[in-house]
């Protein structure tokens, strides 16, 4: 990707987000479910209902509501959550780090497991044991993240209770943080006991998110490795006397990584989407868990803020992945 392409992609971000904002705003008001209808008390008169509607600014024409909301959003004010009574921007900022840390840990686990499985699989290429690796990858891939969440919850929460199954940190621990990046902050400040406590809570949800992702990385990488290993440069290296592990790591892996990174990047966005259900199952306090409550309560301002946040993350991730692929692939760098 050249500079021109990068600038073009950056320029497209604002209209993309505007489009997302319009679609979300309109869709929310078209689909059945009215936040005011949900809080109407028994005995409320039409005047009471109108009063509540006006209180939340939902009495204005749709276009006026959108102009007001979008105008405020441009200055960072995404409105107040109907159900949580706080500014949406502050709520999202407070919870996003929890999801980002979880997604980061899940990605690290997925890459490590996927890479290991692909390398083991390629080492066993052509042997019966390769079937076992392929079969294992197939099983991991066939089970969705939320099902993994339930399996892990029952396995390591109930059957062999090794790890906590709810929350981000033990309620009994008294600890204060300066930021909402609890794990990163505790690692940076050397509070490793706190970091371990956080990791205990993150391992199961992160694993649930990571396992299908790891399987995908393993499958793509293993295929790429097999293709790259059959290329002339690999054969020449072998003829020159390099051992197979050396050839795999030095010659084959860098080339095989490109398609894995490209597809893996897309998968990270899916992983972020997967946090919604997984966070719910493990009562993890990220934006995914918050999104479910927002939808149940038809909390329009919060849903809008959360979807814009997810959209921004997806766009940023896709751009980052494209840049990374460009860095890895000299053909793309030099046109």
């Amino acid at each position, binding site marked *: 990707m050249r500079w021109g392409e990068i600038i073009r992609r950056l320029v497209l971000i604002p209209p993309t987000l505007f489009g997302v904002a319009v679609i979300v705003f309109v869709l929310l008001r078209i689909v*059945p*479910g*009215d*936040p005011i*209808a*949900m*809080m*109407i*008390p*028994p*005995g*409320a*008169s*039409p005047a*009471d*209902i109108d*009063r*509540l509607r006006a209180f939340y600014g939902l009495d204005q024409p749709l276009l006026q509501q959108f102009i007001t909301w979008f105008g405020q959003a441009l200055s960072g004010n995404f409105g107040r959550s*109907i*159900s*949580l*009574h*706080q500014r949406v921007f502050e709520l999202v900022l407070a*919870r996003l780090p929890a999801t980002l840390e979880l997604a980061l840990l899940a990605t690290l686990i997925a890459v490590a497991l996927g890479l290991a499985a692909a390398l083991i699989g390629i*080492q*066993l*290429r*052509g042997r019966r044991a390769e079937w076992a690796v392929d079969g294992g990858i197939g099983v991991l891939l066939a089970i969705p993240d939320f099902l993994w969440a339930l399996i892990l*919850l029952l396995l390591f*929460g*109930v059957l062999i*209770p*090794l*790890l*906590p*199954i*709810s*929350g*981000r940190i*033990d*309620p*009994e621990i*008294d600890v204060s943080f300066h930021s909402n990046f609890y794990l990163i902050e505790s690692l940076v400040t050397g509070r490793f006991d706190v970091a*371990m406590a956080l*990791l*205990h809570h993150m*391992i199961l949800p992160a694993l649930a998110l990571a396992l299908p992702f790891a399987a995908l990385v393993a499958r793509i990488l293993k295929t790429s490795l097999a293709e790259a290993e059959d290329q002339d440069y690999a054969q020449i290296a072998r003829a020159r006397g390099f*051992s*197979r592990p050396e050839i795999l790591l030095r010659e084959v892996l860098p080339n095989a990584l490109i398609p894995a990174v490209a597809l893996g990047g897309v998968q990270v966005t899916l992983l972020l989407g997967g946090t919604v259900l997984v966070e*719910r*199952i493990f*009562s*993890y*306090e990220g934006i995914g*868990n*918050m999104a479910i*409550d927002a939808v*149940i*309560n*038809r909390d329009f301002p919060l849903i809008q803020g959360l979807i814009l946040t997810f959209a921004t993350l997806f766009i940023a991730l896709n751009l980052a992945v494209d840049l990374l692929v460009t860095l890895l692939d000299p053909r793309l760098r030099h046109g």
Partner: protein
Amino acid sequence: MVSPGLSRRSVLQLAGAAALPLSTGMLGGPAQAAPAGTLTIAYNVNLPSFDPTVGLSAVNPTIQSIYQTIFDPYIAQAADLSFKPGLLTKWGWNADRTKITLELRKGATWHDGSPVTPEDVVWSLQRAADPKGGNPIQFVWSKVGNYKIDGNTITGDVIEFEPTLFKWMAFLTGYILPKAYFEKVGAEGFEKAPIGSGPYKVDAFERNAFLRLKAHPGYWGPKPAFDTVVFKFVTDPTSRVAELESGGSDVTFEIPYEEFDRLKAKPGLVGQTKPVSDIAMIFITDIAPMLDRNVRLAANHAIDKKAIVDRLLKGYGVPISTLEAPGYAAFDPSIKVSYDPELAKSLLAKSGFSPEKPVKFTIQTTRGFKPKDYEMIQAIVGMWRKVGIEATIEVYEIAQHFELRARHALAPAAFYNWGNAIGDPSTSTGFAMFGPSPHCAWKGKDLVERIGPLWGEKDEAKRIAGYKAVDKYIAEEGEVIPLFQYVQPIIHKKGLKIVPQANGMILPQLITQA
């Protein structure tokens, strides 16, 4: 092929090394048990907001347990739905119902140590009555005003008589908040650092994860048995079951009945059930074909409620014939709607319908919102089919139900659950069946004329008798299908003593060590 550098043995060794930290507990061992003096409750909903008087959470009955742990309602409620002194020790009307008198308890303090004053009470009532304040129950609180304080006694003028005013003082938005503190920190400051006068004060809050509370040393009531209470917000029922099985929590509730039966049989766990003030019902909308009395009555008589409770709910439910459940003020056991499929057939025959030529309509239901809701409606549709009713099931979300109900656009039949924690007939039959109410599906004049005069009825005995008569009329006309009263399953560790509340609340201040 080149010999791989990785043998089967080395793979197994690697796997073993990776598993070692788990097996040896290097990662922290099992879920940490709560320290002594801590009660951990796996709670079924998140806490959206700390202000118990504004917004969605203020009218969510499920959250009230948490609110009543931190804040005091004006009037307290006993386990059987009766009312008892709380922060108010006396309350009542004058003889002609034109004034109210409230007496505030002496010696109560806020969590910051400052005293609870009559000014706090008046400010809370005035704030609740403010049309611009966002209190969803404002229509009740606005019926009294012009408060005067004399010592610890408060009097107010009745603007419009509301017979259930004092009952509301024990329920939704009926909480006393600290005037001086709230005005000092503002609404947002209060959300971040709330204080009340209840038995527990907020110690730590991680949204969607947990709320940690510490016993309030200045609490006016009995000292709670636990110094620390943790509400873990575990909204998924499977996760709540796992919380209890793993030892991560001491108490949980609202779990599938099958799981309840399994868990209560396990050593170390105790199961308790109690019918609560929440019923399952089917709204009937006054549109075709429900305008035909024979169809309505047939739909009622064709349902075997006992079979539904026994087979789908494992016996955890109490069949009902009116919207008043046992324990409610206007419950009348003499009103019975029998299960009589033959009667249903003959009623339908009078209108020209039969199993061969069925009457057709849509029934809406939630799926997974309440235990076995969809399965229950499937069973009812099967029972109806046998007598000559062909109903098509349409699944909706609960948010859709509220919107459709407010627009009077529900299908001819619509499943719902109706809570009534104060047990008053106005908050069940009244609001569910009175045409002008936004929650009513049957808008017929017959009920408007019968219920209307009861809203302002000053003679309590006459009011209750009036509602019983209305319930009898509704049963005879089949204008709603009451199904059963829910039973709340509570599972807790052995060694705890829990007194189940008929209003369904799980109050940590009432949980003790056995």
